[in-house]
């Protein structure tokens, strides 16, 4: 099915459901607004920034992610259980869902297209080091790679390593620098602030 045909088919289904009173078009606008404005990787970035600046919060986030984020009332989809895994010099973590495209929506927003494509889903469990090079990410051979396949309702987020030179930035400044891909685990944040 081409993109054009898929769009026609989606709109046809929408019109039928609206006519039958099974769907309210206004809800589509709500969904657009919600994910375009309020739900996105800035939420995860805020958690990371806070963890880097607040040792107690970091400890909470790693010990029980679900409890640690309860205070923020994130919208955008349930995260029944959040597990945050920490990158270190010894260990690099990367997240996937091989069976579908499970992803911590409330924390990171909508998943990128590549996260949902067969290339990433098939290959990152088998050759994570090679796949990361597709993202320009080259890991040292001695660093252990831990892949997390989100096969149940537990959702995973990566706590990236804070680059040298970022220690003096405020949480607000950090939120603008922490990328979505670093929280999925396919990117290592640049050591030099732009």
């Amino acid at each position, binding site marked *: *099915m081409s993109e054009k*045909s*898929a769009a*026609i*088919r*989606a*709109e*046809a*289904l*929408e*019109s*039928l*459901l609206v006519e*039958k009173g*099974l*769907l309210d078009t206004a*809800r589509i606008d709500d*969904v*657009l607004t919600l994910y*375009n404005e309020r739900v*996105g*990787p800035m939420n995860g970035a805020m958690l990371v920034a806070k963890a880097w600046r607040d040792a107690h919060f970091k400890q909470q986030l790693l010990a029980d992610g679900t409890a640690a984020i309860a205070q923020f009332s994130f919208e955008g989809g349930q995260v029944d*259980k959040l*597990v945050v895994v920490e990158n270190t010099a010894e260990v690099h973590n990367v997240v996937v869902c*091989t*069976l*579908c*495209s499970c992803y911590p929506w409330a924390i990171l927003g*909508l998943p*990128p*297209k*590549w996260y949902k*494509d*067969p*290339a*990433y*889903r*098939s*290959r990152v*469990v*088998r050759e*994570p*080091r*090679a796949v990361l090079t*597709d*993202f320009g990410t080259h890991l040292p051979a001695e660093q252990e*790679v*831990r*892949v*997390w*396949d989100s*096969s*149940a*309702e*537990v959702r995973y987020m990566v706590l990236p390593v804070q680059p040298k030179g970022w220690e003096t930035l405020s949480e607000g400044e950090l939120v603008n620098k922490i*990328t*979505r*891909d670093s929280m999925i685990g*396919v*990117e290592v944040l640049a050591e030099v602030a732009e």
Partner: protein
Amino acid sequence: MVAHRASVAESVGGHLDGIHDLGGKQGFGHVELDASSKEGRHIHGFNQRWHAAVFTIINSLFVNGAAANTDHFRHSVERIDPINYLSDGYYGRWLGGAETMLVEAGLLTQDEVNSRVLNRGYELHETVAARPSAAPDLFSAEERNFQPTAQRLVAIEPRFGLGDKVTARSLGGAGHTRLPNYVRDVPGQVVALHGAWVFPDANAHGKGEDPKHLYTVRYQGADLWGPNAESSVVLNIDLFEPYLSEASLG
């Protein structure tokens, strides 16, 4: 072809071993990055209005009763034709799943959908992802009350503990499961216990929530992929207790 495809009997497959089970499969090429990865976190949200429409339609399924639960919905996506599964993209797959569920629940007829898409200029040669089953009605109206798939309290103690060696085996048959092929029959180790959760293999098929203990099981790359595996790679995956047995020796 817009015409509805031949219905698929239960014996032809639920999709325990369907095309969606992509882990470890080869031949899908390199990851294709989009602007959101090239330009950082500032690009997010929907690229196309129809993506948001499909997203909203999916949400509506849990309200209007077409989808009984998340597992039921996931199973509808797994049942789309393998070529469409690979070609249609994420929102295209969701669209196929939505159409399947709406027709199976009797909220729309396939004829209605077909006439409407043709009216709107759908091209006749395009294949259709949705394949509603001939005998789909696993769920009664009462059962179509959406409950989030989630943790549940159970009185039964977990069978395995931290550090236990386990092997996952397919439960067989045809239907939804969250046990991918690539870890089956390979020894792993329990590294986390998550309490009991709704069991997708039952919940997707109207057999109740039947909560089961959930574990994170860790596998060594070389055990999964053989002697030529990348070095120092471990794979963690969440698996339900019924998949697991004590790892055999050797």
